[in-house]
């Protein structure tokens, strides 16, 4: 079953008086449960693609169907609801709220969605347990190590039980060892059925994915998973 279907996606930015094609004619299909790495040099459009998949950005042209539903025409608030329920983000710099504890950071998506406090506490307790953060619940982010911070971020990304996790250089700010831990965590999530899309510079991390996409100048240069859909 197709989770993501992109067709003819264009995304242009105006830099001064020149137009930059961040994405040009991207067609892509990702099935539910896939593990996809997006690679490519800086400025190749991989981050733009990730933002687009996460409904943080809108294409100038083309269509994006998420779980069979055209999401490019949704209003910003409808897109926010889709993000809340279906998509989890993991960032390179963790993006934890510094004044909130680990538990509160993990609970943040549920708080924003208006889930009752008791239900939040129950789910956060489970998450803390399964991510090995039980004794770090009341620590602020600046009292946590990098690996712990990213584990909090991953716990936060999964707390709403999304169908899709988008990770942007999830190991970029971590050393090799903690980076591996985080990757294993993400892969375990993928093994439990969550679709995982990882953007990375790191060839070894990219090689772990079952499917590699290589981007250059806003185009998909290489797709290891399947024959390109009507490319060009």
């Amino acid at each position: 079953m197709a989770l993501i279907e992109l067709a003819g996606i264009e995304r242009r930015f105006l830099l001064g008086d020149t137009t930059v094609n961040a994405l040009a004619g991207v067609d892509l299909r990702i099935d539910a449960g896939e593990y996809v790495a997006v690679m490519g040099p800086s400025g190749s459009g991989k981050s733009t693609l990730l933002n687009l998949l996460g409904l943080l950005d809108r294409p100038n042209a083309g269509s994006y169907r998420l779980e069979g539903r055209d999401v490019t025409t949704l209003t910003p608030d409808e897109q926010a609801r889709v993000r809340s329920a279906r998509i989890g983000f993991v960032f390179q710099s963790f993006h934890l709220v510094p004044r909130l504890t680990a538990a509160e950071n993990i609970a943040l998506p549920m708080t924003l969605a208006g889930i009752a406090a008791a239900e939040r506490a129950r789910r956060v307790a489970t998450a803390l347990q399964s991510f090995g953060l039980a004794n770090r619940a009341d620590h602020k982010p600046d009292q946590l190590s990098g690996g712990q911070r990213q584990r909090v971020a991953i716990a936060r990304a999964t707390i709403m039980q999304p169908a899709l996790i988008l990770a942007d250089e999830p190991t970029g700010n971590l050393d090799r060892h903690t980076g591996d831990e985080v990757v294993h965590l993400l892969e375990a999530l993928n093994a439990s059925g969550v679709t995982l899309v990882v953007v990375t510079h790191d060839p070894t991390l990219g090689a772990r994915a079952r499917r590699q996409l290589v981007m250059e100048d806003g185009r998909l240069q290489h797709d290891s998973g399947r024959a390109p859909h009507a490319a060009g």
Partner: protein
Amino acid sequence: MRPADTLRFARDAALGTPLRTALSVLAMSIGVAAVVVLTALGDGARMYVVGQFSSLGANLVIVLPGRSGTGGFNPANAITSTPRDLTIDDAAAVRRAPAVKRVGPLAVGTSEIAFGGRLREVIVAGTNHDYFGIRGLEMAQGTSLPDDDWNRGSPVVVLGAKVREELFGAAPAIGQLVRVGDRRLRVVGVMKSTGQGLGMNTDEVVIVPVALAQAMFNTNTLFRILIEAKSREAIPDAKAQALEILKQRHRGEEDVTVITQDAVLATFDRLLGALTMAVAGIAAISLAVAGILVMNVMLVAVTQRTGEIGLLKALGASARTIRLAFLAEAAMLSAVGALLGYLLGQAGAFALRQVFPVFPAYPPDWAVIAGLSTALATGLLFGVMPARRAARLDPVQALMKH
């Protein structure tokens, strides 16, 4: 986001930058405190003046000889001379009007009073027993003037507190004979000290029966007739009836002026009320400034927390949720500031009352309510723009600023 969560989130955000939060709360509280203290001052002044006027007597209607074109007190009232003067019989006639409770005729002159070799100038007020009731004058010792025929000038005198003090010192005054002008009068009473007021200072006055005063000053006219109406509502009736009676007695000629204390009081009331409004307005400017400061603080907060706003959007926060969170924070800053300012202002007014006990420096309710609601309204109003700016941030751009 649930309302309780929004509030908690806003509170944590505000407490996350303690100095900035404290400063904007301080600014807001100074604004509110200024409103409370300044209006307490203004309204205190008003209450003070009104209180002084009320001490002249309640439900008072005053008849002045002479027709004055303009109402109220003016210097001309004191020096007008008219062909037909007010007499004791006029005052007695006014007493028959249904709306009138008591009448006090008043003849005034200056003379000298002497006892045991001490001599001083005094104002001699000639009047009757009822005058004491109308003016609310209380006796420290003895009795007031006898309640007898107004035309019978018994040789008695009631002394003001200061006059007694200067003439007798510690010695008893009641029953003693004093010389006033060329007459020997028996002291029957001493008035309680009333202190300096807006009216005649009764501490330095001696009061004798009205007929006696007229005889002493060789006149048969009255300076004033003081009328006490039966109630506050009866004041206009008492005024009209007194005027009608005097007009008939003066052969249809309206040659007296009748003023009510209310008219005088209302003028002062309006004047000082306007003054209070003016200082409240000036204080309100500081509230507006505080509001702008809250806006500034919130704009800085939006800029500083751009990355966080981007994150909230990525985590599925709607524009409304973000708007509400920032609005709640602005409202919280102004609400806490307003509350603090209210307490500060009340403390200031309390301090004023301690320092100046005669001055009833209580902030009026309208000013407190207006001050608090202006603080909240400006806080919210100036919070809207930063909140909208936060809600409109592009998530991709916002996320990059971390």
